[in-house]
Every structure is written in C-alpha cells, then in structure tokens.
C-alpha cells in the first residue's frame, strides 16, 4: 500500500489525461522565427540586435503562452476529475510541473535561437542571459495569470466592479466568466517582461563594462521580490476560483465560444470516394486549429527556401522543421483514438485507411522538405 501511495503521490493524478505533445512544436517554430529575425538584424550591430531581442523575447513567450499554461485551467483532465476531492493546491502543483516543463522546453529552444543569431561570442552571451532573465521572471509570474483567470472566471455579482469588468471586456460574444482567460495570462506575461527589465538592463550594462549603480541593483532585487511574492500568492488566489472557473470555461468552450455547427468540409474532402479515408481526413481537418494556415505556412516557407538565392541556414531549416511538426502534431490526437475507431469500424465493410491517411498527411511534408534538402545537399 505504501509503495502504491508513493507511486500515486509522485505521479500527478491529472497527468494521464493531458495532451503532452501539444506544446512541443510551437516553441520550436517561435524560436526559429526569432532566430531568423535576429539574424536579419545582425548587420545593424550588436546594440540593435539586443534591442530587437528585447522585444522578441516577450513576443516568443506570448506565442507559446497558452500551450505551456493550459494545465492550470484548460486541460481535459481537470474536467474529468472535477468531482473528486482533489485540493486546488495539489492541482496547482501538478499544473505548475507541466508549466515549468513547457517553459524549460521553450527556454532551451529560445536560448539556442538567440545564441545562433548572435554575431559574436559576447553578443551571444548577452542575448542568452537577457532571455534567461525573462524566462526566470515568467516562471515566477505566469502562474499569477492562471490564478487571476480562476479568480475572475467565477460568477460574481453583476453590479460589482469585477462583474462590470467581465461584461465590458468580453464584447458579448462569450460568457462573461470566460472573458478573463483572453487577457489575464497576457497581462501576467507583460508584468513578467516588465519585472525582467531591470535584470536585462543590468546584464547589458555589465556586458558593456559599465558600472551597475546600487540603485539599479536595488531595483533588480525589488523586481525579484515582487515576482516571488506574486508566485507565493498565486496558488491561494487560484484555489479560491478553481472549482467555479473550470466549469464556466468548459461551458464557454462547448457552447458559446463557437457555433455547434462546424464549418462545411472542404470540397476536396467531400470528393474523396473512400469513406474511411474521408472520415480520417475530415477528423484531422476539424480537430486541427487553422489547418489550411498551417499547410500554407509549410508549403509557402518551403517554396521560399527552395527558390531564394542563399542556401537555407540553420534557423531557416529549424523554422521548416517546426512547421512540419505543427502540421503533423495534431494527427497524434487521431492516433490516440485510433484503437477506439478501429473497433468502431471493424465490423464495417471497408478497408483500413490508416496507411492512405498517413500518406495524405505526409504528402505536403515530402513536397515541402525534399526540394529544401536537395538545395542544401547541392550546396554542400
């Protein structure tokens, strides 16, 4: 029994429900784009590059914010276990483990991208240190965004300031209780970026061999102290709102955050005569957010890289790899339900369509990657 208890305690009860792959690809793409933009700024000099990095860091973090913080309030496991007496503090701890894992993944790719883009050793070091300062502050402050979302995601008296805020910021297109999820995490990230500034400026001054004034050091310590305080208070705020916020968020997601009738299937899918293949591709289309945009980005980027005059560099190749992942990762959702579907379809008089479906999904990848590989291979 004791070992079983240890096993359960070590492993979050929510872990098996989570979609672990969802947040893996986006950080790679974001880092790749950041490296390309920073690389483009390199001819302007080290200082300009640092300025660009200063703005790019929070932008990269913003792009992947939802992917790494979804475990606090959005993941399916939360709803599946909502009737269980699992304390919000334990849920917060489980969510934070996933948050920090996502952040570490983002931090590693970001550091790689920034190091790649730096023109020389000292610039590389400053870019990476600035980035890591932001990562540290994000680790401390981002949980506050989830906590505020839980706190403001409850039903509050409509005449209260919180109630008025809920209504006024939503524009009436979704539940007032769900509106906070649109802005609170981003505000928390902005706060993290603001609190990281003293650290980043100190790093820059140190790198430029300038004296860091004692008042500046005090500002750095004060910023860290504020961030630590926010981190300590976040689980308390989260606990007060969690049990109400999750059902409201689910209700908003299921009912009002979009019409129950999905978009018409594209004509090319409707034209497929093989019903099993049509089903897989239709599911992929519906379960993948902005599928055509992903496809267009993949094929468009590949075309750009294949036909531009210079041979694609490492950052550009990284972007392409990330876009391939962005296109393919949603298929893992289908893969997870493959066994259920196999049982469902087994008695039907149709052939297994898995191989053909994978061929269809991989075709654009082959189309995009092969010319770039040939291009790089030809140059070497």
């Amino acid at each position, binding site marked *: *029994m004791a070992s*079983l*208890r240890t*096993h*359960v*305690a070590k492993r979050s*009860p929510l*872990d*098996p*429900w989570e979609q672990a792959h969802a947040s893996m690809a986006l950080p790679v793409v974001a880092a790749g784009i950041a490296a390309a933009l920073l690389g483009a700024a390199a001819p302007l000099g080290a200082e300009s590059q640092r300025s660009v990095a200063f703005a790019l860091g929070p932008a990269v973090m913003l792009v992947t914010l939802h992917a790494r913080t979804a475990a606090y309030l959005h993941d399916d*496991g939360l*709803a*599946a276990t*909502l*009737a*269980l*007496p*699992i*304390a*919000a503090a334990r849920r917060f701890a489980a969510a934070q483990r996933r948050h920090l894992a996502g952040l570490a993944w983002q931090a590693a790719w970001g550091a790689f991208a920034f190091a790649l883009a730096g023109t020389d050793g000292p610039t590389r070091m400053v870019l990476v240190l600035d980035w890591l300062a932001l990562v540290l502050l994000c680790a401390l402050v981002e949980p506050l965004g989830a906590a505020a979302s839980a706190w403001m995601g409850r*039903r509050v008296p409509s005449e209260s300031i919180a109630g008025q805020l809920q209504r006024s910021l939503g524009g009436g297109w979704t539940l007032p209780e769900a509106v906070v999820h649109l802005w609170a995490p981003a505000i928390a990230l902005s706060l993290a970026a603001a609190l990281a500034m003293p650290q980043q400026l100190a790093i820059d001054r140190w790198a430029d061999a300038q004296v860091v004034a004692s008042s500046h050091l005090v500002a750095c310590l004060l910023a860290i102290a504020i961030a630590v305080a926010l981190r300590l208070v976040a689980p308390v705020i989260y606990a007060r709102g969690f*049990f*109400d916020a999750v*059902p*409201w968020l*689910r*209700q908003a997601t299921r*009912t*009002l955050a979009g019409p129950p009738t999905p978009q018409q299937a594209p004509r090319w899918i409707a034209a497929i005569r093989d019903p099993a293949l049509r089903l897989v591709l239709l599911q992929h289309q519906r379960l993948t957010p902005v599928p055509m945009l992903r496809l267009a980005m993949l094929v468009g980027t590949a075309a750009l890289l294949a036909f531009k005059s210079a041979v694609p560099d490492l950052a550009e190749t990284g972007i392409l790899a990330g876009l391939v992942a962005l296109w393919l990762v949603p298929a893992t959702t289908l893969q997870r339900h493959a066994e259920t579907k196999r049982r469902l379809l087994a008695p039907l008089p149709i052939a297994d369509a898995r191989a053909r479906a994978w061929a269809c999904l991989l075709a654009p990848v082959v189309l995009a990657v092969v010319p770039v590989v040939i291009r790089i291979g030809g140059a070497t």
Partner: protein
Amino acid sequence: MTLPLRVRGVVKRYGSRVILGGVQLDVGPGELVVLRGPNGTGKSTLIGCVTGQVVPDEGTIAIAGHDLRGAPLEARRQLRALAQEVEIPPGVTGREWLGFCADVYGATSLATAGDPQLDEVIDHLATTYSVGLRRRLAFLGLCLGTPKLFVLDEPFAGVDQDGRRSMLDRLRGFLAAGAGMLVAAHDHELGELDTLTPKMVDVRELGLQ
C-alpha cells in the same frame, strides 16, 4: 439530521434556453432517488450541477451540509460520482486506480477488489478491461471511505448480471449506513433498482421549463 443532498432553487440556462428552472430536491439519509425523464430534459445537467461539473446560474446545492460552491473540497469528500462514460486514464492498472481513489478519498486501499472477475485482472492496465469491468472498477473506487452521497448516471450500463448484483449489494450496504443516492436511469435499469425501494422523480416535475 444533515441531508446527504439539498438542492434549492437551482436554475441553469444555456444562452436563452432554460434547462433547469428552479429545481428543489432533497435526498435523505438512506434514500435512493431515481431521476427519470426523456432525453434532453435536464437529467445530465442536474447531475452535472450536483457533481460540480456545471455551475448553476442561481440556487444552492449542499452535500452532507457542505455548500458545493462555498466549501467545494469538503462537499466533494462526501460525494461519489459515477459519470455516464467512465474515464479511467490510460497507463494505470486497476490496483493503481483503486490506490489513487483511496488517496483522493483519504481511505485505506483495498487489498483485493472483492470481485473475482476484477481480482483476476487487477494488475492489468484498466484500458484493457471490457466496458462493464471498467465501470465496476470505477464504482469500486467510489466505495472507498465513508461517502454520504452517491450520484450515479446510468450505473449499470454495460455491466453484466453478476456485476449488477455485486454493485447492488454494495449500494444496499451504503443505504443502510445512511448514505443518500441520486441516480439517473432509463426504464431498462429500473428492474434492478426496484429492489432498493427507490423514490421515482420525473425531472420535468422538479421545476424544469
């Protein structure tokens, strides 16, 4: 005596559609209330409200005297909810699931399931179980600790005769110990539940519009 379940003036709307229109419902100690009604009349919504999966627009719900919103954790400690579709997470054996439930409900885990069919596969991954066996495992997890209220949505769906008998025996024991039960069931499940002398309630008479 504290009621296992006390529902007062529960209103739930989805957009402009009123699903529950001021539901009042008590489930007393040792009482089994069976919710009946055609599909789409709000049985699942009411069950969702009682299990905390849905937040009502108005009204209060108290489980064993604990307000579900005011004291969410205390209320949930008294509650055992079996959903219509049992979700045992992948990668967990039957024994580990029971250990998890024991941990969550602050109880001692069972050395054996006390169910020959389950005991045989208790160390197998729960995802390899049949639908009925998964449901029995989930139900067994709910029997740990000292529950005050069971909320069961179609409890016998997919469960064979032996399994139903075993579940009924356990339910009978909990009723005798003073637990209350709220069950959503269709007509074909009423035969078994009749042996527990239930109180039949049509959801449409609970303030539905």
